[in-house]
């Protein structure tokens, strides 16, 4: 029973983190045991400079090899500490480590999804959505441009660090736009379809404080195919 609860809890993480399994269930014995695998930094499907001029190669390299990598390493540290606390059934320690799991695990999930929903023009970046997701966008927002306006307004409204996501509501099937603070991941009721990083490290070297310019430019490299796949799987 514990095994199935764990499996349910990790399933969204597994789907989201295509970079590497965060948990693998080993069965065939009387009790299902989980072999915890380390999170790892996913490779990008494009070069660091491939998203220019929307996002500079300098930003992409720092963002992927430093920021995301730090989330991966810090998540693994926190996961080790959590495992140790679980092994000794130290409830206080388990609770104390939760903010670090949330922050670094969330950072890893968010950035993994982000790299996948960006693409250079020669890999479809910037091409508008099609299929069921396109229909849902038109039904919900009227048009893609209207959706982008609302999305960019949400991004502009983030005070501090965070992300804006196009999400699917698993309860209603509707799509919507939600913002999350810091590295809080999209889990639970909502499924992440498309995310844009609004942390300053995502744009500051290139756009300085002109974040509206970044929010406008990033759509040129959005990979709607990734969002469509997530929508149809949800």
């Amino acid at each position, binding site marked *: 029973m514990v095994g199935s609860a764990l499996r349910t809890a990790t399933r969204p993480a597994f789907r989201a983190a295509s970079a590497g399994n965060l948990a693998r269930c080993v069965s065939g014995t009387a009790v299902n045991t989980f072999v915890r695998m380390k999170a790892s930094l996913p490779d990008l499907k494009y070069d660091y400079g491939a998203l220019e001029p929307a996002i500079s190669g300098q930003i992409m390299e*720092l963002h992927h090899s*430093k*920021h995301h990598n*730090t989330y991966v390493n810090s998540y693994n540290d926190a996961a080790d500490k959590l495992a140790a606390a679980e092994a000794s059934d130290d409830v206080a320690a388990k609770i104390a480590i939760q*903010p670090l799991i949330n*922050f670094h695990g969330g950072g890893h999930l968010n950035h993994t999804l982000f790299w996948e929903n960006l693409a250079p023009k020669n890999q479809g970046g910037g091409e508008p959505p099609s299929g069921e997701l396109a229909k849902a966008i038109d039904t919900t927002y009227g048009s893609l441009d209207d959706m982008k306006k609302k999305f960019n307004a949400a991004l502009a409204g983030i*005070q*501090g*660090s*965070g992300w804006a996501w196009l999400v699917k509501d698993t309860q209603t099937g509707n799509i919507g736009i939600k913002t999350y*603070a*810091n*590295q809080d991941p999209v889990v639970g009721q909502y499924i992440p379809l498309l995310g844009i990083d609004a*942390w*300053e*490290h995502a744009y*500051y*070297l290139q756009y*300085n*404080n002109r974040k509206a310019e970044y929010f406008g430019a990033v759509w040129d490299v959005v990979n709607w195919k990734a969002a469509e796949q997530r929508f149809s799987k949800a």
Partner: protein
Amino acid sequence: MASQTYSLPKLPYRLNQAEATSSSNLVHHLTHQQAIKFNAGGHMNRTLFWESMTPASSAKAGPEGKLADAINARWGNIDSFKAAFEAVALSLQGNGSTWLVKDPEISILEFMTSKDQDVVPAGKIPMLGLDMWQHAYYLQYFNNKKSYAQRWLAVVDWTAAEKRFQAGDLGDVY
């Protein structure tokens, strides 16, 4: 950390005097409150940040007088203080500030962090504050927050911090 509670000022009209969209007026009012809190906090925090610093050529290596005594009593020496301050600064998740504050009621010095543009809560007096928003260091240090925090400690205006330490209340600080 404890968060400051803000009370809504009285609206200049009774809610039932507003038009049919009274709930949207309230939302509008609350949105302005949020913007006021964020921007006012940002102004206060930035002001303290600028006033926490002085050019390296005129900066003292550390505090003197009563503040030095209090820091040594709490952390042993200035180097241990700096290492501890740096650790707190690096522990901030997201944007915010790191503060050395005095609790005047129980006469202790402590570190605290405030997230985003939240201000130091009532009851604590800030001695000095380090802006940990990414825009404060990114162009120079990229993601190397440790280097930023370490180097920043070399431009702290200890004379100003000593004055705030002697201050009786927040009126002498802000």
